[in-house]
């Protein structure tokens, strides 16, 4: 793992923008791909399970367990995001593209945060905690507002759809930059050095 490749930038007091995202952020980014897609798929499927399905109890249990883990990872990821320097926008991108990318990234983070929070609020509206894989219990703090489970449920559902819509946009954008524009957009979210890294630094 070439994590140490990136570290010199942190020890340097001068302002140098890294050529790619922090190794931890890259790791978190790719770890969250299966987590988020998995949570969405399971969530979408489990709400229509019949009462007598063998998954009726287990699917929500796993969904909640993984969701709590995602919340923890998200918190760590956001800390790193704010603490570590981000790569500069790619110069060949128009201001509009840079703006849309920035907005998309901000929305993705915001949606993820609100979705995990609303998920928590559904299950804990009656003070019950959330059992995470039977390892430990995240305590519940009851109702913060009227009809909490229902309202948080609507938020959870519709923001999850919005998130997946944005994820598709995000992925298509990255693929377009990689395969059509052939720029470093996607490479900045991978550990190996990109070929044209020296050009970007200029």
């Amino acid at each position, binding site marked *: 793992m070439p994590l140490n490749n990136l570290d010199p930038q942190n020890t340097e007091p001068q302002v140098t923008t890294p050529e790619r995202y922090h190794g931890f952020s890259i790791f978190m980014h790719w770890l969250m791909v299966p987590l988020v897609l998995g949570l969405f798929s399971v969530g979408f499927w489990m709400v229509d399970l019949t009462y007598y399905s063998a998954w009726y109890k287990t699917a929500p249990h796993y969904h909640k367990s993984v969701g709590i883990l995602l919340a923890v990872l998200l918190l760590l990821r956001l800390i790193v995001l704010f603490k570590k320097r981000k790569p500069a926008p790619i110069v060949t991108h128009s201001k509009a593209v840079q703006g849309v990318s920035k907005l998309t990234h901000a929305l993705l983070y915001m949606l993820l945060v609100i979705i995990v929070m609303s998920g928590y609020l559904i299950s804990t509206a*009656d003070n019950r905690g959330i059992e995470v894989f039977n390892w430990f219990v995240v305590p519940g703090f009851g109702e913060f507002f009227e009809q909490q489970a229902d309202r948080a449920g609507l938020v959870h559902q519709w923001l999850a759809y919005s998130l997946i819509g944005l994820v598709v946009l995000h992925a298509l954008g990255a693929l377009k930059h990689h395969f059509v524009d052939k720029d470093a957009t996607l490479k900045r979210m991978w550990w190996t050095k990109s070929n044209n890294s020296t050009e970007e630094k200029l």
Partner: protein
Amino acid sequence: MKKFVFASLVASMFVAPMTQAADYVIDTQGAHAFVQFKVSHLGYSWLHGRFNTFSGTFSYDDKDLAASKIQLEIDTKSVDSNHAERDKHLRSADFLNVDKHDKATFVSSKVVAKDGANFDLMGKFTLNGVTKEITIAATKTGEGKDPWGGYRAGFEGKTSINLSDYGIKNILGPASETVQLDLVVEGVRK
């Protein structure tokens, strides 16, 4: 339905003075009234729940029981089975469909005296937008002065309904088709 409830209320105002019936407000303020249900879980056990928000009035005449009447309006959103996730499911279109029908009502049409303190309370029950005639097996549990200057009368009623009669598809299994309703009503005389 609301109009009907209102109309029957208005009607009862005019009818009441002609009989000796006294009018009561159901004591939801002091929570001395309960709208409860129980339904079989898998055929092995019972699930109990209740509606926390409801209101109603009744008039009751000891001498002329047949002149007694009751109307009750239940806020279906207030369903409480002591589990937020389940209550959310109960409020959904799978069960109570509260977005479309946030009220369940009972308006009595006939009272038939039975032995002792028992009587049958017949009337129209509306749930999920469907109205059916039901009979509640009721009992007067007591009446008299309360310690705070008022006068109270208490009743109990039991009935059962089938989910499918009210347009609720039973997804819980055959043992859970019938829901038992338990009403505990204490009224304060107006």
